[in-house]
């Protein structure tokens, strides 16, 4: 029942929100339901943690061999937790932002949450595909309607790009469907499928391109900086905090177990691409003049590392990936909150126009510094654990790859500190002269994120344990 309520709560709330007329009403509704979702998730983790509560199955589309099967495994729990935590934080942190037709905004946001939850719990190929798209459509509307100047073209590029990917995935799914003896989309049937090498090599790419676009890894990434830049920040948080994890998640859940041979065959190629992406994105990030674009490229670099670590197929590395999915989600949301706070207040995101905020807004400065160091995976922040484990996996796969990817660590320090310096330090500019401290809700949300960063950085073991079953299944 837990996974079902995780989907239904935001879904129902989203539908309701379309009909709430008052702006505040819809905000409160969204906040309430997102917190309720979080509560359900926590209950599921702590109280109702028997597996009976974590599976749900009804017949649906019987003639097509698909069932409404949802379930939570370790990785699913982790990502659902991330989603459940992120949304209240996002909604609360951007609570004071003004949107035209507020109710629609929050409705779409909640629908996105429902879609994301669905992706993480789906245990049926077709169902997974549905949620994959369901998560995309509201985002399309959110970005196109409430985004920046070039929003329409940029969002459209993003949409078409991902849509092509998911259509290819659909082709792949159908291909698999007819390969299963009982013509079924159920995940266990797909897992039991033993495809011939040529079939694997071929269908692997159909899936992988979809996921690679979503993640995104080099060279499928060009939609991302534009989309992040142009989207309303609340949506950007969803995009980069959670949605890119869909790609990673999907690789772990749908790609590797189904195409083990192809994954082994093309793993090296993908790792090389990912590593090129790490260095490439990091270098570009150094030269960015826009907070959002910088975070976007930094995110590409981080995702590249995760992707590379996946294909090492190393138990330690895989745990790192799963951990990092959570950590990166939390951290990057924090960074976006700050970016949003700055943009809302000062109306600019350009480094060249910012500076000296540490004098005007010390709390913001401290929180940004914490987040920045989490972004570069300083020890005792949550990101360190993930990166440490991932690098470990990568190292055991190939020393040189690890070393080149390690350049990313150095470059990450360069661009992140660039950002910190240009935003916070130095003298104030005409724009930042009258800057004031961030508002209370932003502060508290960032504080929560900071606490999570530290707590999971110091004591990651519960999270690691959560991933155990999934990794074991993958390695086998």
């Amino acid at each position, binding site marked *: 029942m837990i996974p079902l309520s995780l989907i239904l709560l935001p879904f129902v709330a989203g539908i309701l929100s379309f009909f709430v007329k008052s702006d505040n009403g819809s905000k409160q509704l969204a906040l309430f339901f997102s917190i309720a979702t979080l509560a359900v998730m926590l209950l599921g983790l702590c109280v109702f943690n028997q597996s009976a509560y974590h599976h749900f199955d009804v017949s*649906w589309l019987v003639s097509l061999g698909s069932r409404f099967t949802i379930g939570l495994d370790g990785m699913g729990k982790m990502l659902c937790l991330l989603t459940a935590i992120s949304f209240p934080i996002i909604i609360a942190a951007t609570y004071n932002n003004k949107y035209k037709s507020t109710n629609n905004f929050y409705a779409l946001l909640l629908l996105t949450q429902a879609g994301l939850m669905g992706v993480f719990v789906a245990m049926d190929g077709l169902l997974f*595909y549905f949620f994959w*798209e369901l998560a995309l459509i509201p985002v399309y509307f959110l970005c196109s309607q409430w985004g920046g100047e070039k929003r329409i073209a940029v969002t459209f590029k993003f949409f078409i790009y991902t849509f092509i990917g998911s259509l290819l995935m*659909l082709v792949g799914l*159908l291909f698999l*469907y*007819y390969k299963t003896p009982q013509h079924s989309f159920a995940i266990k049937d797909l897992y039991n499928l033993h495809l011939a090498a040529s079939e694997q090599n071929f269908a692997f790419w159909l899936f992988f391109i979809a996921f690679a676009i979503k993640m995104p890894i080099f060279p499928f990434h060009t939609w991302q900086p534009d989309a992040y830049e142009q989207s309303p920040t609340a949506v950007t948080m969803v995009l980069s905090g959670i949605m890119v994890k869909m790609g990673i998640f999907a690789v772990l859940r749908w790609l590797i177990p189904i195409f083990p041979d192809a994954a082994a065959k093309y793993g090296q190629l993908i790792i090389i691409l990912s590593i090129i992406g790490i260095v490439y994105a990091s270098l570009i990030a150094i030269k960015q003049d826009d907070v959002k674009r910088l975070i976007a490229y930094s995110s590409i670099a981080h995702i590249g590392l995760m992707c590379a670590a996946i294909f090492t197929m190393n138990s330690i590395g895989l745990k790192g990936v799963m951990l990092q999915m959570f950590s990166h989600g939390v951290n990057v949301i924090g960074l976006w909150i700050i970016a949003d706070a700055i943009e809302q207040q000062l109306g600019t995101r350009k480094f060249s126009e910012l500076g000296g905020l540490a004098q005007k807004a010390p709390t913001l400065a401290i929180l940004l510094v914490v987040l920045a160091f989490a972004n570069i995976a300083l020890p005792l922040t949550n990101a360190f654990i993930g990166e440490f484990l991932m690098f470990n996996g990568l190292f055991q796969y190939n020393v040189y790859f690890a070393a080149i990817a390690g350049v990313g660590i150095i470059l990450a320090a360069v661009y992140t500190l660039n950002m910190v310096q240009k935003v916070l330090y130095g003298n104030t500019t005409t724009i930042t002269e009258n800057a004031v401290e961030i508002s209370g809700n932003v502060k508290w949300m960032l504080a929560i994120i900071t606490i999570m960063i530290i707590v999971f950085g110091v004591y990651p073991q519960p999270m690691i344990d959560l991933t155990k079953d999934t990794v074991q299944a993958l390695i086998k």
Partner: protein
Amino acid sequence: MNAIIFSALLGVVMMFSGILTTNKQAIKNIALVCLTLLLVANLANHYEWYSIKIDTKQMFSFSKYGYFFNTIAITATLLYVFVSGDDIVKVGSYGAEYFALIFFVLCGVTILSGYNNLLMLFLGIEIMTIPLYILTGSDKKNLHSNEAALKYFLMGAFSTGIMLMGIALLYGSSGNFGIETVVNITAGTLMKVPILEVIGLMFIFVSMLFKVSAAPFHFWTPDVYDGAPSVFTSFMATIVKSAGFIALITLFANKSEELGKLWNILLVIVIIATLLVGNITAVFQQSVKRMLAYSSIAQAGFMLFALYSKNDIARDGILLYTSAYSLATIGTFAILIKMDDHSINGYNGLAKSQPLLAATQSIFLFSLAGIPLTAGFFAKYFMLASVIRTGGSAAVYLVIIGVLFAAVSVYYYFKVIQAMYFKEGSAATSKITPNFKFALLVIAFLIILFGVMPDTLLGLFYF
């Protein structure tokens, strides 16, 4: 048989209803009642409550499949009249006659869903198209309408000539007009197939491709769809086109493997050409109506997948496809008719002035684009699935080409959504009645319903 007889008779009733009343609303209501009657008659046949039994001497072979298609076609027409009825009677001063013609078209459609003889195929197509020539030209003072009617007529007559030549050659080879002889004769292997047979079959095929507007026989489509009064375009692009596909499927779906392979070469060329022309050309269109015309070509390309794969899934899928496509297109056209400006820019800001219209329009466009949880998705799904079912990597490549074009189609469908939701403007519409809104909601609801539970639709009537 019920449907054929009833549609003809009710057409006559409609013809004469124009004498009894000149009240347009009344005419529309009569048409609705008649359509409901027709639907009931067809369902009666379907569920074997009551059926008129006539010895057709193998002219027809009725099946559940055909009945189901009739149900879809009639229901779609019912919805079409429900949502656009007011606009039908507004086209010219012959409201009742237009409805009569629509009934005659339906008669042709029902013939095509159950024909078992090339003569009936010929007659069915003619019964279906001749009223359409008239409907296309019904806006008599409008030169566009004139032009469209003339073009449609000349090209239609030409393609009829091609088809008749095909039938003649086929007859020369087989000696009769039953379609099972077609099946039997083509069941040989490549080198043993009678050449007359094959060339005759190909002429028929070409002519049918013309009817369903597949490239490179599609040239009439954009001009005719664009020139015809929008209400009738809606009808032509949906129900009539679907009937063409059903006729094609009936004729060609049972061919042998060996011939099938050869057949597939032609089909693949046609499919790719159709997808290419339809999708790519639609991208540039500024007029929504013309864009929909090209998109209907593109949709035809997808439906041709069913012909390529020729399996059960294709047969089921084409039904779902026609219903999904018809629903969405009827809805889209209904809204288009209400718009003052038919260009894409004319939709700017519709979401503000008419949120319900914009929302339902979006659902229709989603369905056309094949976004999940709309009927259109499952329609495309079935098509893709049927092709993949045939196995082989060539099939997968074909499907990949198909989905790439589907992505292109998203480009132009979403231009309308962008205009409605994200662009500033004051989209002006003519008066929107609550009835109209209700009708749109019904269509949208059906689209979502089929998108969530497509097997309910199929299972309800068919399995």
